[in-house]
């Protein structure tokens, strides 16, 4: 039997293992697994599986250099699928616009604007975000205030730089 070209092996392995990752991630989600941790764990697992698959299929039939090509392509294809998948996940989880439409739908499609502002531009939503930022290690409580951690400071500096470079204004 003729062996597949390394690039074809890379595409098939990357696609198959990415589908496996999405299935594992979604099933874990339904079972109540932690979102960010489970996402990274399942993705890391799928990367390892993919690399083992590519190496075992390509190394024997094509040699080292084509295996490196296939592995590089597979990693990049998988990473590309991941960076497109993750924003979609976070839209489902955190988008205020999406949540606004969901609340409106639950309330029969219409709601006083004031109530929506109370809900989405009030203390509760800020408290929630601050708690998430603390849990993620970007802020640390300091009395009634929240102080940037070194990790939070680096992230804030990086995005403040992008905002200044692109002249985006205050944003947020």
């Amino acid at each position, binding site marked *: 039997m003729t062996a597949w070209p390394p*690039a074809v092996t890379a595409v098939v392995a990357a696609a198959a293992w990415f589908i496996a990752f999405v299935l594992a991630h979604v099933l874990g989600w339904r079972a109540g697994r932690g979102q960010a941790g489970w996402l990274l764990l399942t993705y890391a697992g799928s990367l390892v599986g993919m690399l083992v698959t590519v190496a075992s299929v390509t190394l024997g039939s094509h040699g080292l250099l084509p295996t490196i090509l296939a592995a590089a392509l597979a990693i990049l294809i998988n990473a590309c*699928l991941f960076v497109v998948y993750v924003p979609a996940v976070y839209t*489902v989880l955190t988008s205020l616009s999406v949540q606004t439409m*969901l609340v409106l739908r639950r309330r029969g499609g*219409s709601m006083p604007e004031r109530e929506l502002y109370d809900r989405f*531009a009030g203390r509760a939503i800020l408290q929630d975000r601050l708690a998430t*930022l603390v849990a993620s290690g970007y802020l640390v409580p300091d009395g009634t205030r929240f102080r940037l951690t070194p990790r939070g400071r680096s992230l804030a500096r990086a995005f403040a730089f992008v905002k200044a470079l*692109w002249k985006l204004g205050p944003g947020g």
Partner: protein
Amino acid sequence: MKAIGLATVMTIVLLLLATLTFRLFQSEQRVRQLAILYAICALLLACLWLATPDDLGVLPPALVVVPRWLDLLLTLFFFSAAFFGGVLQLYNLADRGFSLRILIDALEHPSGTVDLDRLIGEYGGGRGIRWMYDKRVADMLQGEFIARAADNLVLCRKGNSLADLFTRVRRFLRLELP
């Protein structure tokens, strides 16, 4: 490897063009500006791929992707993912990231901190938390997902379809509905 090289080069070109465009042509329609740049760059990339040899004059035969058409597809795929998952997301986070703006508010404050009461009035470099939601409401109104009716906000057909889709997704994922 040609696919990786060309897509990387064109992504850098796109980032440079986006930077120049944002700095020279201030607009409220930045996503539209980015989409136009993406389309131009994708076309240029396809032309560049056709105009260059498979081995770029330097690659060993083992690093040339076979079949050829797959290399062109991968080139465009890598570039598109770099745009939709990279450049566009970077813009969205920098311009719309709620949590990121809180971190930047802390960075910009002399004390290096934020607190709840101050954020209510001064979130977003002094604009306040209502301003953050104003922007979202304005975008939903402009996109015709919602409409204003007296003191109410009302779901439009497009918004209702989207809400329906997200309700199903959240139910499937066993997430609480807001």
